């Protein structure tokens, strides 16, 4: 009487072939993201590991050392697929199609012994279900890593400090302001004030979708810190909705200079530094051109 592991080992090539067939027949397979050779190599590696683990009689605990190779390979595949942009369906189908082919082969081999077949299928079912759960966990973890990295990148690139004039800095804030972001904004702004020796900083919040009491608190903090450094801070880009929310929430911005647009803030900054922008007289222009 052959054990399950022996049966599977004997029919390894057949299982692999069926498995590849199953995977390739899936209409949703993205062969632009991965070559068939690569897929075959991955699948063989995975099947080898699985059979080795099964031959030790372990069907339950996939976190055992027997399964180390299988779980490692699987995690690898999931993470890579998550990064390459495979859909969850494709990644899940990878393990589930293995189950199908294994069961097909077992059915062929055990036609005479139904009770044995039933037991084997139940065992393998549990095992492969566990493995597919692992695949999903890892896949989602991979995706979350991608999202986290993107969040970091966004918050890094979205706080540029622009020097709009000698001694005048502007900092357009785009996106929601939370504590972590305020910290970055504040540090960048203050450092840039030191570097350029600027007197005036304009904080433009036209790209901030909503202002609640917490965001207002953050803004007030930034303005206070700028003042402590010896520079003046103007907040610009206050839209009608934001003005309404601020008043309804009872936030006091009366000791902060606020302007509706960046242009008017710049105008105020000019008058604070005793600068004046004037239109040149029109007839002088063409003369210079000649």
């Amino acid at each position: 009487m052959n054990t399950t592991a022996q049966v599977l080992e004997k029919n390894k090539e057949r299982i692999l072939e069926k498995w590849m067939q199953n995977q390739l027949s899936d209409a949703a397979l993205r062969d632009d993201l991965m070559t068939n050779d690569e897929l075959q190599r991955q699948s063989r590696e995975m099947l080898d590991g699985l059979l080795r683990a099964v031959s030790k009689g372990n069907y339950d605990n996939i976190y055992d050392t027997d399964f180390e190779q299988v779980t490692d390979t699987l995690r690898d595949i999931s993470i890579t697929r998550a990064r390459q942009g495979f859909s969850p369906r494709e990644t899940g189908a990878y393990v589930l199609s293995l189950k199908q082919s294994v069961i097909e082969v077992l059915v062929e081999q055990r036609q005479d012994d139904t009770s044995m077949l039933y037991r084997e299928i139940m065992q393998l079912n549990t095992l492969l279900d566990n493995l597919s759960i692992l695949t999903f966990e890892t896949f989602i973890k991979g995706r979350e890593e991608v999202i986290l990295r993107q969040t970091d990148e966004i918050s890094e690139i979205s706080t540029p400090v622009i020097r709009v004039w000698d001694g005048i800095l502007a900092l357009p804030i785009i996106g929601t302001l939370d504590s972590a972001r305020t910290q970055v904004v504040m540090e960048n702004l203050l450092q840039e004030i030191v570097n350029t020796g600027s007197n005036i900083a304009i904080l433009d919040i036209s790209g901030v979708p909503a202002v609640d009491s917490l965001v207002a608190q953050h803004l007030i903090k930034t303005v206070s810190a700028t003042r402590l450094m010896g520079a003046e801070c103007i907040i610009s880009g206050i839209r009608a909705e934001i003005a309404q929310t601020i008043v309804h929430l009872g936030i006091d911005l009366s000791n902060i200079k606020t302007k509706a647009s960046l242009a008017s803030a710049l105008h105020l900054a000019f008058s604070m530094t005793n600068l004046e922008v004037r239109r040149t007289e029109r007839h002088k222009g063409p003369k210079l051109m000649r």
Partner: protein
Amino acid sequence: MERIPILKMGPFLLVTIQIDLYDRLALTLENDLINMVSQTGARGVLIDISTVSIVDSFMGRILGNIASMSRIMDAETVVVGMQPAVAITLVELGLTLQGVYTALNVEKGMELLNTKLGDNLELDDDEEEDQDDRND
């Protein structure tokens, strides 16, 4: 005992804090500075903290105290050269140093004191115009 030197420059007093202030030193400074203002009749106090990297709430309060005391004695206080990290710390501690003038560096601080003093002098000049004429 250590003391922080207070320099007199025309109508202003100049203090450069180059070591980390501990509590007793800060208290001594406050005391010395106010005495100096009263002795010299200074019209402005400039405190340079550009090399101070650590502040606590006590130091923030001392700076506020110095400013309030000087104000009563008719002298303006300007704190110059605060480090970004120090500014963030003070704001987090809830100390915004109301009533203290700030400037980016000593040069700008002096400029600020001169304008403040200039404004006041103009007012004084208006009042004392008659007297001046008589002296001539």
